[in-house]
């Protein structure tokens, strides 16, 4: 059923270099999250639940896994006739040859032919690396009702943190009058969530102009939004209340996982009306052994727990051996925590094998320790 003519474009090409080894071979949106998900599942599931039928996923950095993963439209129920998930990687073109995506706006510009072909009336631009649940259909309705050329979703953030975000200054009708990227002295606490709805016709014109400008960095926040403001086009803020998190660093990725243990984080994955869909794995249910001790954990199928798990998130296929102790940690897919190993405030990457008895992290550590394969290899060398 086609309900609206809004096409979603998910920006998923970035490397996410602040995730270090986690994004060495996969793009950030494909990084695992919350036991059984990948980060991009949230944007894709939100699209599906908001009755959007056509979604473009713009990939560039390390895209093999992300492309094949996103292309399986049926995972999210995005496989209706006439719709689907389109993986849009940089391509060679008749007129312009092969060009990489030079920025977020350029990535959309280079796919204007796709949006033309889909006869888009509205374009929803999303980031592939945010954790949240949002009904874009409601946002579209407000966009239409307010007769704006663009609507930007905003969330209230604590004033002292506002200088980390793109801040929208609005009038009393929530019309955006000024946009400041990471201001030193923020005038408001409305942070952009990186969720935009554009009326396509106008956007198309502005993207074409932006592409011609050699001085532009072809970025939505830095160039396109300021151009709209300069020309006095109507830009509306859409206030979002609820859970939203940018998981761009090891600490924030760890924190977002830990939020799943809370009753009141605002991110309810149990809600049957707004499920987050993900690739199905043919894993057994979770095996909780005779010796296991579990105190507040989020654990998914395929995990085998024989040790102690406290306040942690355990992903698919993880094995926690006897007498191991895992506390305040996130253990990603297929990692093995050896017998008697002790982990505190760690984020263990996929497939890492932690040797028996190894002690990692400390509850007094302010920062979370990223335990990757190369970290373990290095620790092994130092012991020799």
């Amino acid at each position, binding site marked *: 059923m086609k309900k609206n003519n809004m096409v979603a474009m998910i920006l998923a090409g970035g490397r996410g270099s602040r995730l270090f080894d986690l994004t060495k071979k996969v793009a950030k949106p494909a990084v695992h999250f919350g036991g059984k998900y990948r980060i991009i599942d949230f944007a894709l599931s939100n699209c599906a639940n908001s009755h959007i039928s056509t979604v473009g996923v713009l990939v560039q950095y390390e895209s093999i896994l992300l492309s094949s993963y996103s292309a399986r439209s049926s995972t999210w129920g995005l496989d209706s006739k006439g719709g689907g998930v389109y993986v849009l990687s940089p391509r060679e073109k008749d007129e312009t040859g092969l060009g990489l995506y030079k920025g977020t706006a350029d990535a959309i510009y280079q796919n204007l032919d796709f949006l033309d072909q889909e006869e888009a009336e509205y374009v929803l631009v999303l980031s592939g690396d945010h954790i949240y649940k949002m009904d874009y259909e409601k946002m579209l309705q407000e966009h239409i009702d307010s007769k704006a050329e663009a609507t930007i979703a905003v969330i209230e953030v604590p004033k002292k943190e506002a200088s980390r975000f793109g801040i929208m200054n609005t009038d009393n009708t929530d019309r955006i009058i000024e946009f400041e990227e990471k201001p030193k002295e923020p005038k408001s606490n409305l942070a952009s969530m990186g969720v935009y709805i554009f009326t396509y016709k106008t956007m198309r014109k502005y993207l074409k102009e932006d592409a011609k400008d050699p001085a532009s960095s072809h970025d939505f926040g830095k160039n396109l939004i300021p151009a709209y403001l300069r020309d006095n086009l109507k830009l509306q803020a859409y206030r979002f209340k609820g859970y939203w998190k940018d998981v761009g660093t090891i600490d924030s990725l760890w924190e977002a996982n830990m939020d799943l243990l809370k009753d009141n984080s605002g991110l309810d994955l149990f809600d049957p009306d707004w499920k*987050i869909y*993900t690739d199905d794995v043919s894993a*057994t249910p979770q095996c*909780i052994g005779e010796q296991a001790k579990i105190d*507040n954990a989020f654990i*998914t199928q395929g995990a085998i727990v024989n040790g102690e798990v406290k306040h942690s998130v355990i992903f698919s296929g993880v094995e926690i051996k006897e007498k191991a102790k895992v506390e305040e940690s996130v253990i990603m897919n297929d990692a093995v925590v050896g017998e008697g190993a002790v982990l505190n405030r760690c984020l263990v990457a996929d497939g890492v094998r932690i040797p028996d008895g190894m002690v990692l992290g400390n509850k007094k550590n302010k920062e979370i320790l990223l335990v990757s394969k190369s970290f373990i290899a290095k620790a092994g060398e130092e012991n020799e």
Partner: protein
Amino acid sequence: MSKVLGLLNFEPSYVHVKGIEDFRPISAASILGRYRVIDFMLSNFTNSGIDSIKVYIKNRPRSTVEHIMRTSYNINSKRGRIHLLHGEDVFSNNDLFNVDILAFKTYMEFIDVENPSYVVIAPSHFIFKQDFSELLDHHIASKNDITILYQSVNDANTSYLMGDLLEIDDKKRVVGASKNHGKYKSGDVSLETYVMSTLTFKQLVEEASMTSSLYSLADIIWDNIRVMKIGAYRHHGYCGCISTLNAYFNANMYLKKEKNLTRLINDDWPIYTMTNDSCPTLYKPGAQVRGSLVANGCQIEGTVIDSVIGRNVVIREGAVIKDSVILPDTFIDKNVKLDCAVVDRLSIVTHIKDIKGTKEDPIYVKRGDRI
């Protein structure tokens, strides 16, 4: 490889799983938290490279149909096929007449269309792991007319009751068969899995329907013991015959242990089932869980010991679940004590605070019941 068709038979009339069978055939019953009994045999087929399968359904087709339609058994979406054959018109109210031969005969045209060289007929009330391609290779090499899978057991006095006991000579030839009345502990039990050429299969179906309308495929095979070369092929490893509530309970209890489970299901032999898109399970502060198999989507505040917990089960604080099987979408309220119970899907246990069965005779709580 010659073209092989998998035929998944429906359960014979000796299968009676108290309570559970009132709502679905045992093949569609939930087991081990996230599977249906039928998943094991269908995955045996597809893991063995057989991706053309006929599933015969005797009655109450809804849950089987729904489950199979929504499960990806790793069958090639163009060349492979699962065919659901539900015999609504041909079956009678008297279950004695509802023999597999009737279903095979009725839908023979669907087998003819595919024109396979061999058929593998497997039961839907058994759980075991078997590579059917090995069985087929053995069948072809041995030049048997029929090859039957069997297991040597030492609990025939309590399990596999009314199943078939085989008499096997030292050349692995079946020379006799009798019903298991539970007289002896040890014996060779038929796993009701047969390999034969399509030609032989068609002959047997024809012969059986001419002989008696009460005849099953097994009956006509036993009639031919002296005429045909019937070989036996031994199965090793776990085998569960889910023919009673007790057997259902025992299968859950045995397979919830990691070592037993991972021998049956692993990366080399995955068991496919329907995804429900449930999120992982949340163990809240104060929850105590050990010795258990837990599916996704649960919210646990209470205590769970040596049990199997199905998908999307809620267990409130103070509840204590021990040696029990909780089927999906169940709600166990505060301070409820369950011991040796089988709680069927969608039920709510809130008022009755103490439910206690025994391992030999677990208590059954009805599907959708509110107690």
